[in-house]
């Protein structure tokens, strides 16, 4: 027994055994550095990948021999997340410090230059701040519309009644539509010549009505479409909270003759508060990413450019890759601040209650 466990102690750096992960890391770092310096990118990428696989294999053997089942089970998930999310994130952090365009070969270190440019340069900063202000406006309007509509829908469905299942799926359908189709069809509904909305308003007022002709109308149109699509999501969350309230609390409240308004605040609200917070968080982050509806409905016209769409334009259409990376880190920073703000408020309120 002791002999076995002594070989299982972390081996010396130079020992060539399968579970020596320290040696594997050392070899991997050296090999990667050499290949990145000497070989073309397409080849060195695979060399680095093989080196990473070597380290992973060493860790796996190590974990298996030591019965670290937790690490073994978690490893594939961490590997996928690392390759597809965390590594690209680090890459784009690095890119944001360089001047680089995807359609050119040159690359030049500029430090914080990109960040300074998007935040203070006359032209670039103007677009960035304009897009950020628009995004903030969309976040406020779409999220509050979704919360209100979703909440009211949830109250409707919070009882058990005949055909409930079939009616619920009708309300859920907007969420399942492809945003391409629903977005394009909203341009039809809003169309000044063929659209239903204009037809109805024209026949009432007698004047030609064009929803998308000014900023207020364009924003209202986008907010309405987005709220229609995603209110069911809020509804599902709130509904899950509403149905988890123990019935005896309402029965006790009925005996005490507590008004239904107070009943809501004293009994229902504490149960759904956490889920409302979750809905608020999810929808805020999603609204922060709003781009596809804007592309389809206004193409950024009438001053409806959002930060996501701005980023797509900069990075993909204008090929300003590193400037795009800087904008995406600006966004990431804001989302993290927002998330923590919500979590902080949620925690403080639970403690206060």
């Amino acid at each position, binding site marked *: 027994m002791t002999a076995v466990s002594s070989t299982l102690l972390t081996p010396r750096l130079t020992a060539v055994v399968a579970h020596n992960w320290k040696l594997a890391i050392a070899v991997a770092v050296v090999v990667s550095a050499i290949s990145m310096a000497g070989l073309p990118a397409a080849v060195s*990428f695979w060399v680095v990948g093989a080196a990473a696989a070597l380290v992973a294999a060493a860790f796996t053997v190590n974990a298996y021999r030591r019965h*670290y*089942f*937790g690490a073994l*089970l*978690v490893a594939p*998930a*961490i590997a*996928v*997340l690392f390759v*597809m*999310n*965390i590594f*690209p994130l680090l*890459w*784009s952090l690095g*890119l944001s410090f360089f001047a680089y365009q995807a359609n050119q070969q040159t690359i030049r270190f500029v430090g914080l230059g990109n960040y300074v440019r998007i935040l203070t340069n006359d032209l670039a900063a103007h677009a960035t701040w304009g897009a950020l202000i628009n995004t903030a406006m969309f976040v406020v309007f779409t999220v509050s519309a979704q919360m209100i509509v979703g909440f009211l829908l949830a109250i*409707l469905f*919070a*009882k*058990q*009644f*005949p*055909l*409930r299942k079939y009616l*619920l799926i009708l*309300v*859920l*359908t*907007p*969420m*399942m*539509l492809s945003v*391409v*189709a629903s977005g*394009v069809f*909203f341009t039809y509904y809003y169309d000044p010549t063929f659209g*239903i909305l204009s037809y109805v308003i024209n026949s009432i007022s007698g004047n030609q009505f064009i929803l998308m002709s000014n900023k207020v109308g364009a924003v209202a149109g986008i907010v309405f479409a987005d709220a229609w699509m995603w209110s069911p999501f809020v509804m*599902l*969350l709130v*509904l*899950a909270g*509403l*149905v988890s309230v*123990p*019935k005896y609390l*309402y029965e006790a409240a009925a005996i005490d003759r507590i008004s239904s308004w107070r009943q809501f605040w004293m009994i229902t609200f504490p149960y759904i508060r956490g*889920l409302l917070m*979750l809905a608020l968080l999810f929808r805020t982050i999603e609204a922060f990413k709003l*781009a596809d509806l804007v592309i389809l409905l206004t193409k950024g016209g009438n001053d409806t450019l959002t930060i*996501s769409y701005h980023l*797509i334009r900069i*990075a993909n259409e204008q090929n300003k*890759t590193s400037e795009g*990376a800087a904008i*995406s*880190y600006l966004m*990431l920073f804001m*989302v*993290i601040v927002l998330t923590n703000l919500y979590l902080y408020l949620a925690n403080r309120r639970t403690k206060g209650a």
Partner: protein
Amino acid sequence: MAESILGKLGFGRASGVDKAGWGRTLGVAIVAFIYFLPVLFIIFTAFKPQGDALLVPPTLSPTSLFGLIPDHFVFKPTLENFGSVFSRSMTPDGAPEATGFDRYFFNSIFIASASVLLALVIGTLAAFGFSRYPLKGNDTYLFIILTTRMLPAIVVIIPVILMFRVVGLSGSYLGIIMLYTAFNLAFTIWMMKSFFDELSPDVEDAARIDGSSGMRVFFKICLPQVIAGLAATFVFGLILTWNEFLFALLLSGPDTRTVPVAMNQAVSSGGRGTDWTLLAAIETLFLVPVFLVTFFLQNHLLRGVTFGTVKR
């Protein structure tokens, strides 16, 4: 129906779901119908003759409902739009050509189900690991995993495009499936962990004492108890992946194009303006699979959408 959605979820007699009668059904039906109207209009448009699509006022119904709806709002339903999804003439008087949409439908089904199932397999293993064999800094790992879901997908899109270009994964099934898998992993792990956490440890302990291996405990005892969780995760992941547009637009090639991307091209190409009946027919066909899956797994959706945070 008496014990449908909530009963099966365990929100039984003790929770606050009162019974209500047909009056409630009628009220909710009116609201649900109004909410459903824009979808209904798209579905009806799929059945309209092409010339009817841009009539002012628009035609609204395939039947006159026994004279209830005036004749100029009624259209004659046709199935030809569904045929032209798959084969139509591209030039004004050319012969019908295949549009490749059968391929795109296959791509959508294949990519969405492969990535959701892959995330389910990897994520369930990881969730079991996080739940039963906590690592040092377990909560930190879980928080980082949650953050990958919270951050705007658009942030990683530039490096992913560059990475795929370098490696040659751009336009391949493998690339887009791996990417979607990563985006489904976060909530898969969180949800499945909450399901594993809830299981009673007694049976497991007994099995372990009897000498069952960790593998056997996982497959024979734990997994059968979380089937509902698997279903919930599946349906929620499917809805999110099915309609994903941005990554598909930027990363799929001609052979791996998904329906949302192809739909976008089909309606905006040719400069003749949007072909409304065609778009509606594509969307109607595209809605059917996800609608059916959601309908049959609906009982689990309520649990799924909360990231598993609602406990029994």
